């Protein structure tokens, strides 16, 4: 890295004086060069593939319609937002999607916590093996895992076949698949391993000496959990929650496959306006509203939780 910064000013010319400071300033230059070298490529990627598309989408949401050249300038209009404000069902669906995502995130975290706890404290030498088992589903395609749920829940599926075989029901249950419950069930399953990882990382960071000290002072396991394990693992829990919650608000593939006619989420409506309606301006406006809603929720959450904890 040093060779790439030949114009490095001599530390001696520094007017601050003081050997240590001078040395630090010299390295500071290096650090700045390294910083840009490391961060420029990802920043560039983020700008080109995230910031630009979002800006483009924002611009499209003020387009009157799809007529004319798509990349020619147009007179901004609020027509799309006006028509969305007038359509109550979209707002209601946004609310449902947010609540659904909230439920999925909470369920995934609650289920993932014992899993991570077991891996961190009880799995011992086999922890690595179990971790791999936990991640095995990711080696197959996401669609394949959702299709597996169709096989499980369908009228000729595993659950129905078993219940009929066991004589508990005569006719297959149709209520298992093609509704919002099936969407929730599938998404909780899909996100469970993702939720377990940050919790596991947080649990593993806890110094075992704390438990010994607590035990020496007479704290029983439940008390130790409440006063040591839980508070120290909370950053992982919040990280897990947001990791599930944010992508789930915009989810559309799972509802499409297992949701049936009544399991649609807000993301499906956005997707429809892009791929089934060729109405990008309206789809963009819907997306901007979701983006704003998500940002507001995250800001509210940061008011409640100190997000900086997550990165310490």
């Amino acid at each position, binding site marked *: 890295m040093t060779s790439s910064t030949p114009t490095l000013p001599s530390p001696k010319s520094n007017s601050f004086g003081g050997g240590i400071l001078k040395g630090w300033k010299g390295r500071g230059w290096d650090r700045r060069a390294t910083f840009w070298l490391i961060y420029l490529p990802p920043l560039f990627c983020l700008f080109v593939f995230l910031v630009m598309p979002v800006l483009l989408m924002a611009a499209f949401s003020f387009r009157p319609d799809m007529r004319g050249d798509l990349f020619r300038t147009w007179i901004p209009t609020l027509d799309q937002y006006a028509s969305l404000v007038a359509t109550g069902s979209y707002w209601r669906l946004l609310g449902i999607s947010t609540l659904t995502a909230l439920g999925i995130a909470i369920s995934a975290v609650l289920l993932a916590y014992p899993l991570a706890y077991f891996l961190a404290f009880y799995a011992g030498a086999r922890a690595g093996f179990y971790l791999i088992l936990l991640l095995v589903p990711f080696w197959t395609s996401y669609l394949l895992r959702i299709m597996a749920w169709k096989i499980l829940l369908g009228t000729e599926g595993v659950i129905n076949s078993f219940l009929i075989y066991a004589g508990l029901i005569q006719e297959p249950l149709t209520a298992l698949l093609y509704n919002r419950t099936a969407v929730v069930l599938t998404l909780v399953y899909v996100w469970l391993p993702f939720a377990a990882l940050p919790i596991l990382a947080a649990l593993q960071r806890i110094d075992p000496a704390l438990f010994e000290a607590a035990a020496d002072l007479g704290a029983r396991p439940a008390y130790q959990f409440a006063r040591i394990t839980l508070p120290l693992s909370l950053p992982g829990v919040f990280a897990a929650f947001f990791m599930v919650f944010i992508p789930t608000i915009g989810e559309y593939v799972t509802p499409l496959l297992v949701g049936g006619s009544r399991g649609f989420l807000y993301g499906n*409506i956005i997707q429809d306006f892009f791929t089934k309606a060729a*109405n990008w301006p309206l789809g963009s406006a819907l997306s901007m509203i979701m983006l704003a809603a998500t940002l507001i929720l995250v800001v509210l959450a940061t008011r409640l939780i100190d997000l900086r904890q997550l990165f310490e």
Partner: protein
Amino acid sequence: MKPKRSMLLAARGILLAFVLMLSACGAPAPATELPPGELTGDLTVLDWAGYDAEDFWIDFKNTYPKVTVNFEIGSSDADIYGKMKAGDQADIFHIYTGWLQFYVDEGLVEEIDTSKLTNWDKVPENFKKIGQIDGKQYFVPWDWGFTSILYRTDKVPEGVDSWASLTDPKFADHISMWDDGPGAVTISSYIHGYDETAITDEQLASIKDEWIAQRDLNLFYWAGEPELVEGMRSGDVWVAYAWQGAYALLLGEGVPVAYANPKEGRNSWVGVYGIRKGTENYDLALKFLDAKLGEATGANVVNLFYYGHSNQDVMNGITDETLKQAFSIDDPDILNKTNFTPNLTAEQRDAWTAMWAEVKAAP
């Protein structure tokens, strides 16, 4: 778009260098028209998944083995329209009735020089007309089929004779509608006798209510034919909006299904190919479309996908009983009982697709 274009340019550059190298090696100077077997170049086709298989352009492949054909895949008419609108560089694109007018209005399609199509006279006049806008031939008709109600004869022994069966509460939880707004408007128009080309706001509002009510009877909206076929096969779906490809497929598998002849008439759709305005490969694209009308290609459309082909010789040659039944070939009156999908205007497209989104989002 940009990297793709530059890659294409690079590919062309390499090709050019290769051709120059060949001629430098003492190959005969190229005549004005190379024999088909020697013709080189590359074509890009924006098509639907499945139609990229060689079976569906086999005549071109055999006649012009040295031409590279690249495929891009679109998932729906709206998706393909969006891509072409955003400047997709495909030379040829495949769209369906209802979605033709915008391409002409927005200047995205080149007129077809039918004098260069050797198979053109095998295409019946009524098909040719479907590819005409404002009196000009902009599209080459290629595949076609019916839309009607497909039902399980074991679950619905009394049969169905109306499009209204898709909204009939007695089939609750066993109905599957196609996931498409314009499709829903078409059916409601048939049921209530509305003029499909002039739906009023009041009519659209009542159509919306009709489909919101239907949603509680509907098991799932199907987006791709395989989903529908699976639902019919398993017995979850008894009554569905369906293309005859699904019908022929299930019939061939021995699933007890029938394809209704609703009293309001069946619907019929036609797939057409267009050439992008401004393509540098216009002549090659015409050759491709001419070969698309070829008999081997057409026979594959009929035998592999169970759809009709615009080359009448292909249709006349069908002997398979399942297929004859699927196309209702023995019913001389069938085409008179069929409604062709009219072209949408941009306003209708936006209003009808928004109506459908509201159906899905409804409480």
